[in-house]
């Protein structure tokens, strides 16, 4: 029997090293990562380093892109580019936070319900059906009347708490059949504990599915936020990409060529974010599904 020799890399070190190797697995995945990091970084750091003053200028209303205003100006003559740089934080935060909440709730409830079946499942399904069918506009309008929906965290919670049921149902469906697999039984036999069995053995098998849904949930959450603005349910305070889209929509920016950059740039940022995330999945998919690795 050979003794473990120096050739053995400790699992931890290899994991860290491996992680970086994994990140560069796929070229487009890496590009995606860069895009996502750039957008998230800009949104997080932008407001800290850029001078936030962006004065109204009645002589430059709906200005075209120019040297002074790279992306033109808005209906109050304010610089669009600055708004893009400064206005990502809330939107990106709400997008990720709400998507995380949605996904976590959906995965936790969906997989546990399917795993336990029985009464727990029945009750959870019932709740899911109710949450799913509760008319969101009305609920939000009522909430908006009684609470101030202006903290990003609240908005994220609210959006997240309302959008999990669909994913939950499809997670549940998958777990129903995954839990019948023998490797799950094996894990149960090893008494790994429900938590590990469900979240360590079953759920990772749908990781890439969950991941895609998470990414889709990010954009969905962002547009849910914009929707709240559009419907007048979330208060417009300050400026962010969502408010910009709302503003552009309200002011008919898409009917006017000069005003197009104003509505297109926040949308473009969201598109880029989504695109980056989707490209990133190529790498993540390979990390999550060893059978796809071909390098």
């Amino acid at each position, binding site marked *: 029997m050979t003794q473990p020799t120096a050739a053995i890399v400790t699992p931890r070190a290899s994991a860290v090293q491996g992680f970086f190797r994994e990140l560069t697995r796929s070229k487009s995945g890496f590009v995606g990562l860069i895009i996502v990091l750039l957008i998230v970084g800009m949104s997080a750091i932008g407001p800290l380093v850029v001078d936030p003053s962006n004065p109204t200028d009645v002589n430059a209303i709906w200005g075209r892109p120019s040297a002074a205003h790279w992306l033109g100006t808005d209906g109050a003559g304010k610089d669009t580019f600055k708004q893009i740089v400064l206005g990502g934080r809330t939107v990106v935060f709400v997008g990720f936070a709400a998507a995380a909440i949605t996904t976590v709730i959906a995965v936790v409830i969906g997989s546990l319900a399917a795993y336990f079946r029985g009464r727990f499942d029945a009750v959870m399904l019932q709740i899911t059906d109710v949450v799913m069918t509760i008319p969101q506009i009305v609920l939000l309008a009522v909430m908006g009347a009684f609470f101030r929906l202006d903290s990003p965290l609240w908005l994220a919670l609210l959006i997240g708490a309302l959008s999990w049921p669909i994913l939950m149902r499809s997670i549940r469906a998958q777990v129903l*059949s995954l839990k*019948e697999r023998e490797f799950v039984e094996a894990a149960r036999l090893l008494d790994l504990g429900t938590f590990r069995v469900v979240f360590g053995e079953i759920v990772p098998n749908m990781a890439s599915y969950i991941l895609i849904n998470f990414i889709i949930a990010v954009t969905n959450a962002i547009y849910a936020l914009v929707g709240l603005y559009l419907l007048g349910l979330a208060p417009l305070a300050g400026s962010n990409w969502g408010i910009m889209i709302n503003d552009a929509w309200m002011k008919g920016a898409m009917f006017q060529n000069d005003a197009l950059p104003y509505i297109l740039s926040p949308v473009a940022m969201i598109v880029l974010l989504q695109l980056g995330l989707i490209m990133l999945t190529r790498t993540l998919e390979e990390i999550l599904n060893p*059978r*796809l*690795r*071909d*390098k």
Partner: protein
Amino acid sequence: MRQTAASDAEPILSARDLVVAYRTGDGKSVEAVRGIDFDLYPNQSLALVGESGCGKTTLGLGLLRLLPRLGSIPRGDVTYRYRDGRTIDVTELGKKDLRRWRWREAAMVFQGAMNAFNPVLKIIDHMSETLKAHPEKNSPKTRTQIYDRSAELLRSVRLEPRQVLDSYPHELSGGMRQRVLIAMSLLLEPQLLILDEPTTALDILTQRAIVDVLAELRDKYKFAMIFISHDLALAAELADRVATMYAGRIIETGNVRDIFYGPRHPYTSGLINAVPPVVGDLPELASIPGNPPGLNALPQGCSFNPRCSYVIDECHTVEPELLTITERPAGMTHAAACLRWQDVQHERKVIARA
């Protein structure tokens, strides 16, 4: 022993210097199967035995070009001969031809038959799909014809068609699934049948029944068979020829009697001696000492040298070729890849049944 086909017959399948490699990450790859050379003649049955992990399944998959994404055939040819005498190189077959070739000409019973079935389809659907995918003039077409044909084959592998055909795969026991797959492999009467450990989950009676069915059908349809098994007894019964593999290579080949009565490779000999007998008192059995080598770190020279009791210095430097021991036609040649084949003494301490 069954009489093999006329020696002047052409082989159905010939592999030449076949190599199968798997990519293993970091741009590296391992050759799981190397330098495979053999001819398979009609109505011949070749048993492939050997160490677990030595590349038997890989070879089988390679022959049918069913390797997973990361598997590839970097070198070698596999020539297949149709009933009408046409020959093709399987490794160069086009997509459409490959599809038609598979199962109609060459079928395979997979190891781990548990997952071989689409979980959402009933067994009867699997059967009828297979038939419909290869339409022939006289192949069964209507539902009842298909049912009858499937039932017949299932019965021949000792399954109760009424229960099985209407079941979903997960409703069958492990052995039942294996047998369904065997039945399915016979559905189109292929010329070449690769059976990868087809009886691991079968009891002896069922095994026997299947062995008999295969023998019967082989006589009838003159197909050739590659039979991968760890059950040497079964190999002894079913095969005309045996090939022993070790670490990706064929290290000994010959007819059954050669192998079971006079193995010339120390590994083959050790393997046969490790078979526990069913009769008599408890024997002392010993496994071959040492451990199988890793694919990415094969020993220099003969891969078996660390475990070999006949090892000499030369074994560490030369990787021996298959050396002919007894020349015979139609692939029945006895050959062993051992420098000291002449010295290998084999004696099985069998306590024959009283």
